[in-house]
């Protein structure tokens, strides 16, 4: 039995997917990154190994997400791909003919427009994190509501309250104001969802032609209130795929299958979960740029470096360990 591994190391969550040779998901893992991407990749690998039948052999690895280079070095990935491409690939495989992908993750949100099965336009949030998962997380915590209960509660709303969605700071003070006026929590939550959707469509989706079918994915897609708010704003159904939270990893696994076509994998095995990796950094004093160079060490040996503009440090390593 053979399989492909996809790893998505995001700012908030680290996801892993193992697909069979036919691209179906055998197992998926969703972990919180907690600011420790290396440990989480290792932990994920351990969970993955434990959940899989012993005779399964990984013949391709792909990494994506903002920590893709890090994860790629640790696992020996065959392909390291940006998250826009992987999300698009996963969505168009799960739902052929998809024309719009709404993706909201922990720290970023994006919209991907596909036409004829090909990405024709995309946008990511620029300077503002209002309308991403971490803001919802924080507000849920402030209201002492578990993030899992957020969606169902929002659906109970009878009169959604209007909340300013332009900026997370204003949204918060608006929410406090409405709560002190005596509005119900479900109404406030539904209002917050609508504000975030409004902000998303005005900001990220500005001027984009949102055509059906629409897929909504990323961690925030778990929130039924957000799905309902999107459907209300767009006026047509929004589809949340069953593996909405690991779509990036799924896309990476699919790309790994393509990348290892008639080639053997660079995967270093599940054993890397037990190896000793350390990330360190130093400020290079070679010029006034003072680049922050990052070093990844395995058992005391440098296996990768990046962050230097001139290549003085990253080029000093062997060709194979070089990144970006």
């Amino acid at each position, binding site marked *: 039995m053979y399989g492909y591994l996809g790893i998505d190391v995001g700012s908030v969550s680290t996801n892993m997917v193992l697909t069979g040779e036919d691209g179906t998901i055998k197992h998926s893992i969703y972990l919180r990154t907690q600011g420790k991407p290396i440990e989480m990749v290792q932990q994920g690998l351990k969970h993955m190994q434990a959940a899989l039948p012993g005779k399964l052999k990984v013949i391709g690895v792909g990494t994506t997400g*903002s920590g893709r280079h890090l994860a790629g070095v640790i696992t020996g990935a065959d392909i390291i*791909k*940006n*998250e*826009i*491409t992987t999300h698009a690939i996963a969505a168009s495989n799960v739902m052929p003919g998809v024309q719009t992908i709404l993706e909201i993750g922990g720290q970023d949100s994006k919209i991907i427009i596909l036409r*004829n*099965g*090909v*990405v*024709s*336009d*995309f*946008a*990511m949030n*620029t*300077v503002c994190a209002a309308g991403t998962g971490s803001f919802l997380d924080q507000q849920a915590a402030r209201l002492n509501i578990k993030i899992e209960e957020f969606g169902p509660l929002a659906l109970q709303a009878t009169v959604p309250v209007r909340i300013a969605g332009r900026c997370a700071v204003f949204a918060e003070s608006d929410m406090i104001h409405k709560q002190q006026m005596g509005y119900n929590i479900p109404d406030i939550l539904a209002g917050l969802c609508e504000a975030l959707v409004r902000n998303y469509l005005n900001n990220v989706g500005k*001027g984009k*032609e949102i055509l059906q079918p629409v897929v909504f994915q990323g961690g925030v897609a778990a929130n039924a209130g957000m799905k309902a708010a999107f459907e209300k704003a767009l006026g047509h159904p929004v589809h949340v795929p069953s593996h909405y939270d690991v779509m990036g990893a799924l896309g990476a696994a699919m790309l790994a299958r393509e990348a290892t076509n008639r080639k053997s994998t660079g995967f270093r095995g599940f054993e890397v979960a037990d190896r000793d990796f350390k990330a360190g950094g130093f400020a290079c004093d070679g*010029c*006034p*740029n*003072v*680049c*922050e160079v990052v070093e990844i060490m395995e058992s005391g040996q440098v296996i990768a470096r990046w962050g230097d*503009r001139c290549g003085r440090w990253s080029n000093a390593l062997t060709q194979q360990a070089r990144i*970006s």
Partner: protein
Amino acid sequence: MSVTVGIPRALLYYYYYPQWKTFFAHLGVKTLVSRETTRGILEKGIKSTVDEACLPIKVAVGHVMDLCDRVDYIFLPRVVSTARREYICPKFLGFPDIVRNNIEHLPPLMDNSIDLYRKGSSLYNLFYSVGKEFTHNPVRIMRAYQASMAALNNHCRDMESGRLPFETCDSNRHNRQDQDVGVRDVTIAVIGHPYNIYDHYISMNMLKRLRDYGANVVTADQLPEHVFRREAEKLPKQLFWTLNQRMVGAAFYYFDRPEVDGIIHVASFGCGPDSMTGELIERFARRESRKPLLNLTIDEHTGEAGMVTRLEAFMDMVRWRRQLDYVAATYY
């Protein structure tokens, strides 16, 4: 005793440096260009500039500071207008004042004006008033001026033949376009102000990155003036910003070129004209063209991840779409 004039490697340096250098050389004056932008230069600039100024202005202030104790004069022409009935950004216009009010221990500034807004005004006025400082011989100034115009023409011709400004400004550049190896299968037009896209630090090496991803890069500065002006006439009303006229015209031109596969518009955060031309270009793209367009905004951040992700995704998209067009073309 020979005199040294400092020229900051910022703002209009990328358009006019060859002309300025030639002019001063003919008057027997040495010129010194500030060093390439580094974090140190940027940080100095940020500290000494008001917060609301745009990034290019902050960088330019940093470059002036880099020159301060190494030169006798700093050449900072007050660029009001370089074409009839058009203006340059007001921050350029006020730049000598920004510098004077924020930096201490300045060498004397040469902030003579360039103002071609009105009929009959000439660039010669600038050079005559500058030249007067160094010689009393008007014939010598005239000769230097003529030589400098020839140098400017050469510079423009060089760019029109496909070279980029920093390649023509400095002959010993380390990353010349024609020196890179590897297959280049796509052509990307990068539309942005020269002081943003050619500054390696500010642009986070964007042009080099694109080439590494296998792209041929073309820019707005490689178009002759009459071409981008003709294209910009597609707008219902003439823009009065000269620099942005070039951006819009070039974008329109490249949208129509079959060999260009995608367009990247680079704006600096907080730039008024850029935010408007970005929107104009985007609307045009949506209405008239099927070419992929990416809007990139740059600012002080040093994290490269955001830019790398967008550039990579854009390149994927361009290749993917082209493949599809190719398939469609063979079927129908």
